[in-house]
C-alpha cells in the first residue's frame, strides 16, 4: 500500500532530507524544530475535492527549546537513522519491534518510553515526509481482519503469488488481510456489495447463516477499530470494483467512531484519509432508532458513553442530519444495544429480516 508510488530510495531520501533540515538549523545557530499539523478534533476539516476529512491549517511546532521537545527530536533523529538503514538493507520491522529495538540504542535519552510514543513518532515522520509507514517498511503487529465472500484475488507472498477465492479457498474464518494490501490484485468477483462488520460474533453469525453466499456480499470483519490495511482494502474494493460499502456495528458511540474512521478517516491518521477513507460508506445499524423500533434488549448509557456522544455532536465528521438526529435520540432514550441483541428475535432474524429490510431501504439490494 502506498499513497503514491514511493520507492524505497525516495522514502529514504525524504527521511535524510529531514535530518539535513535539522543539521542546517543547527549550523545556522537556530533552534532545531519540526512543524506538524495540530492533531486534534478541532483541526480537521472536510476536503470537498477529496471528500474526506483532512488536517486543517493549524500547526504545532516541536522545538528543541524545551526538554521534552529536545528529547522527541533526538528520538526522531535516531529513528530516521534506523529507518534509513532498514530501507538501505531492504528489511522490514513491526512498530512493536521498533519500540523494543530502541532499547539497543547506545543512548538512553533516545529510547522510547512506550509503544504509543514510537507509534506517534512514526506517524509524525509520515506527515513530515509525506511518505507512509509502509514506505518505511514499518508494519503493524497484526491486522486480525478477514474477508469472506465471492472474490478472487492474487496475493504476492514471500513464497510466490497465490490465487485465492475468498469463499471457496478459505475456511470458515475467511481470508486474512495482509498488512500491505498493495500486494493484492483483484482478479474476479460476483459481489454486489461490501459489508464491514464490527464484531467477530456477528461476522460468524452471517457466515454461518450463509449471508455472503445468499446476497453476494463481501463480509469484512473490522475487529474493533479497523487497522489501516482493512480500511485501505475496503476503499480499494469500493474504488476499483465499484462496490457499495455498508458498515454494521453495535449501537453505541464507540461503534459510531469505528464507522467514522471507515467513512471519514481517523483524527490520528487524517494525513492519510485520502487513501484510507471510504466517504461513500453507509451506516447500516444498529441505529438508536432500531432500539426503539425493534424494542431491543439494552444497557443504560454510562457517563463515559454520554460524554462520547456529546463529543461526537461537536465532531465535524458527525455533523450531518442523520447523525445529529440519531445521537440526540440516543441521548434521549439513554440506552445502547449490541449487534447480537438482534438474537432476541431469533438467530435468523438478522439475516432473514433485519439486514434485507434495511439494505433494501438503503437501496443496496
Amino acid at each position, binding site marked *: 500500500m502506498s499513497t503514491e508510488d514511493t520507492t524505497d530510495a525516495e522514502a529514504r531520501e525524504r527521511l535524510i532530507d529531514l535530518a539535513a533540515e535539522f*543539521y542546517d538549523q543547527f549550523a545556522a545557530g537556530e*533552534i*532545531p524544530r519540526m512543524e506538524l499539523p495540530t492533531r486534534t478534533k478541532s483541526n480537521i476539516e472536510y476536503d470537498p475535492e477529496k471528500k474526506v476529512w483532512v488536517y486543517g491549517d493549524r500547526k504545532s511546532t516541536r522545538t*528543541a527549546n524545551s526538554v521534552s521537545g*529536545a528529547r522527541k527530536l*533526538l528520538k526522531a533523529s535516531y529513528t530516521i537513522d534506523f529507518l534509513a538503514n532498514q530501507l538501505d538493507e531492504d528489511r522490514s520491522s513491526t512498530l512493536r519491534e521498533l519500540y523494543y529495538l530502541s532499547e539497543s540504542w547506545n543512548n538512553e535519552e533516545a529510547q522510547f518510553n512506550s509503544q504509543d510514543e514510537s507509534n506517534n513518532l512514526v506517524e509524525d515522520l509520515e506527515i513530515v515526509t509525506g511518505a507512509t509507514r509502509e514506505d518505511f517498511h514499518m508494519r503493524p503487529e497484526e491486522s486480525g481482519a478477514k474477508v469472506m465472500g465471492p472474490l478472487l484475488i492474487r496475493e504476492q507472498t514471500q513464497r510466490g503469488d497465490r490465487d485465492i477465492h475468498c469463499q471457496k479457498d478459505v475456511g470458515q474464518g475467511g481470508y486474512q488481510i495482509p498488512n500491505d494490501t498493495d500486494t493484492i490484485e483483484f482478479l474476479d468477483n460476483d459481489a454486489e456489495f461490501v459489508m464491514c462488520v464490527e464484531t467477530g460474533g456477528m461476522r460468524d453469525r452471517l457466515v454461518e447463516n450463509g449471508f455472503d453466499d445468499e446476497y453476494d456480499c463481501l463480509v469484512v470483519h473490522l475487529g474493533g477499530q479497523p487497522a489501516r490495511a482493512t480500511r485501505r482494502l475496503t476503499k480499494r474494493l469500493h474504488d476499483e470494483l465499484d462496490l457499495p460499502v455498508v458498515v454494521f456495528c453495535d449501537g453505541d458511540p464507540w461503534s459510531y467512531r469505528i464507522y467514522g474512521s471507515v467513512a471519514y478517516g481517523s483524527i490520528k491518521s487524517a494525513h492519510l484519509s485520502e487513501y484510507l477513507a471510504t466517504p461513500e460508506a453507509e451506516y447500516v445499524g444498529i441505529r438508536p432508532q432500531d432500539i426503539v423500533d425493534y424494542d431491543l434488549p439494552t444497557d443504560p448509557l454510562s457517563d463515559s458513553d454520554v460524554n462520547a456522544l456529546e463529543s461526537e455532536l461537536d465532531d465535524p465528521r458527525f455533523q450531518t442530519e442523520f447523525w445529529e438526529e440519531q445521537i440526540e435520540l440516543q441521548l434521549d432514550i439513554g440506552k445502547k444495544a449490541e449487534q447480537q441483541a438482534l438474537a432476541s428475535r431469533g438467530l435468523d432474524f438478522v439475516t432473514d429480516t433485519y439486514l434485507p429490510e434495511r439494505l433494501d431501504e438503503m437501496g443496496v439490494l
Partner: protein
Amino acid sequence: MTSQQTTLGEGATTAEELAEGQREISIAEFFEKNKHMLGFDSGARGLVTAVKEAVDNALDATEEAGIRPDIYVEIREVGDYYRLVVEDNGPGITKEQLPKVFGKLLYGSRFHKREQSRGQQGIGISAAVLYSQLTSGKPAKITSRTEGSADAEYFELIIDTDTNEPEIGTAETTSWDRSHGTRIELEMEANMRARSQLHDYIKHTAVVNPHARIELREPGLDEPLKFERATDQLPAETEEIRPHPHGVELGTLIKMLDATDSYSVSGFMQEEFTRVGKKTADSVVDSFRDRHFGRELGWPARNGAPAADVGADIEDALREAVSNKGADATDTFAERVANSLTERERTTYSQLVEIVATVADEVGADTGKTFGATVRDNAVEAAWAELTEFGTGGVEENGEEADGDLDRLTPTLYELVDDATSTRKDDAAVHGLAERLAERFVALGDDGSNRMRLALDDLTTLVHEAADTTEEYDDETFGDTARENVVEALWSRMVTVPDDPPNVTEIAGDRDTASELLEAMRETDILSPPTDCLAPITAELVEAGLRKEYDADFYAASTRDAEVHGGDPFVVEAGIAYGGDIPADGSVELLRFANRVPLVYQRGACATTNVVKRIGWRNYGLDQPGGSGMPSGPAVISIHVASTNVPFTSESKDALASVPEIEDEIELAIREAARELKSYLNKRRSMAKRREKQDVLGRILPQMAEKVAEVTGREHPDIEGAMARIMNNVGVDRERDGETVTLKVANHSDRNEALEVTEIVSAEPEGLPDGVEPIEMDGEWFVNWNPEVSSGETVELEYSLPTDADADATVDGVDDEKLTVNA
C-alpha cells in the same frame, strides 16, 4: 491576688477588715503567691528568668550610658545551689542607688515612664534577688565600680520581707579587673533542665542586640558560648514622652487631674499630654463642652428663611420690652438688635444674649442711656420668644388678634428634615415629624428658661421619640439611617455653648464629668505620638543579627513605620533567614522579641505565633502542612515589637497579648520580608529548572547533532549558537583575526543585560575605545568593558593584540546559569 467581694449589707466594716488583711501580707507571701506570674514557678525556669532579668538590666544600663555592652554570664553548681553571676561594663552604681535598683520590689524609674526600655514594670531583677534569698537564704552579692574610681565597692544585700525594704548587710571596697561595671551574684535553688531555653535566650539576645558582646559559661558547656559584636552602632537613644490623650484610661486620667498644677482643662491638656497644643486643647475643650453642657439650637430671623420675616415682630417685641429709655434710644436699640438677627443665618440663645449685650453697650454709649441687666434680660426673653414662636402666644394684645397659631419652628425643621431624609417620604409625614420635633424642643423649656440646649445623647433620644410618634400616627417609616441623618443635620447646626468648662478640680471630683472629658479626648483627632521614644533595631541590623547567628542562603528584613495602640507608639520589625545550615526538617524557628528582649516561654500564647500561623505561607514558597499553622522548612523568622508599653499576656512577660493593631502590623512586617523570600525562592526555583534544562539539553543536543551529522554524512555541526539561543543565554564568543580581537556579546534573553566583561591579556592591548583603559599588573593587562546589550542584540568589543598573546575573559553581571562564555 485573692479576689473577694464585699458582701452587700455588711458595708464598710468588712471592706476595711479586708484591706487591713491585705496590708498584712508580706512581700515574701506576695511573691510566693505570684511567682508563676513573675516567671519563677520552677527551679529550671527560675534560673532562666533570673538570667533574663539580670541581662536585660545590664543591657539597659550600658546602653543608657552610651557604652557598647560586654556581658558575662556564668552559672556554677555550688553544693545544693546554683550560683548565677552576671557582669556588665556599664557605668556602675553607687551605694545610694543600689537598694533602689536591686532591692525594692515594684520600684523602678521606668514604671511611670513612657519610653522604650527592656524592663517595663521594674519587677524583674528585684524578683530575682528575692527568689535567690528565699530559696538559698543567701544575700545578693553586688560588686560595682564607677568609671574613674580607684576601687570597686562590694555589697551584700537582703530584702526585709516584712517591710519590702532592702538592707545592705556588708559594704566594703574591693578590687575588680573591670574599669567600670556591675556584677551581681545570686545563689538559688535551681536546676539546668531548661538549658536549651537558656541557650536560646542568650543566642536570641545576641541576634537582636548585634551591638552587644555576650559570653555564657555554664556547667554543661565545655567551651563558653561567645557571641561577638556585629556592629558598633548603639541603638538610638530614646526620648521619654508624656502620655497621649488616646492612651489613658479613666482612673489614670483622674489621678493625673488630681496631681496636676494646672487650673483649666486647656492648661491641663497642654501640660500633661503629648501632641496637645493650644488648638488641640481647644478642640478637646469644645468637644468636652458639647458633652458636658450640650449644644444650643439656633433659629433664623432672616428674610426668606422658612417662616421668618420675623424682623418686624422682634423689633415690636423689643420696643415693648424696653421701658423708660426714651423713644429714640428704644427705637435704635430695637432696630439694631432686629437687624443683627435678620443678618444671621440662625441665632442661638447664647448668641442672642451676646448680641443684646453688644447692642445695649453701643446704644448706651451713643445715647447716654444705661441698659441695665433687667432691660437686657427682658430684651433677650422678648426676642427669643419671637424667634421661637410656636403657637403658644394665644393672649390678645392691644385688642389685635393674637398670632396664636403662628409657628416659626415647624417650617424651619421641616426644611431640615426634608433635606435629611429621602425624597420618597410622604410630605405630610415629614411635616408631622418636624412639628413633633418642634413640640419637643419647646417642651425642653418646661423646667426653666428654654435655651434649646441638648447633648448629643439627648438629641438622639428626642429625635427617636418624635420619629416613633410620627411612625405611629402618619403611617410612614423613619428607619435608622433617616433618624441618624436627622440627628446629624440637627447636631451640625447646633452650636457649642460659650460657658466656661468646669475646672480641673471640679472634673477630678466628679467621675461622670471626668468620663465626659475622657470621651472628648478620645473623639478628638490628635496627631499620633512621636516615635523618637522608640528605638527599632532597623531592618539592616535585624538582618545583620540573623546573619551573625544563622548561616543561611538568604536574609530579608523589614521595619514598619511607627503606629499607635492606645496611646502608645510601637514599631514592628521582621526578619527571615532561609536555607544554608538551618535545619530543613520540622517547623521553622520563630524568634520573638519585645523591646529587644527575647521571649522564651509560652510561644503558643503569643500574638506573634498566632500571626505567623494565620499567614498562608505556601504563597511565599514555604511548606505549610494543611495550609495553615506553623510553616516548615529551613527558615528562621524573627519578629521584634518595640513600644513604650508592650502588652504582655502576664507579668512574666513571656508572650505578647493579642492587640489587633499590633497583630496587623506584625502581619504586614512579616509579609514584607516574606515577599522578598518569595522572589528569592522563585528565582532559585527557576534557576534550578534552568540548570536542569541546561543539563539535559547540554547532553541531548550534541547527541542529536551527532546523529543528524551521521545520517546526512556531514561534519559535526557547530551547535553553540543554537544552544545559547535555547538557553535564553547571554553568549560571549571570541574571534581572532590576525591581531584583531573581537568579543561578541550576544543577548538571547528576553530582557536587557548590563555586563561587566574583563579581559586579561598577556601583552599590551591596542586600539581600545575611549574610556577603556588597560591596567597593568605583574605583566598582565586588565581591560574592562561595561556593555549594555538589549534583548536579542549583539554587541562587539574590538581591540588589537599581538597574535601570540594570550587572552582570557571573565564576565560578571549575569547569573552564571544564563551565561555561556566561549572566550
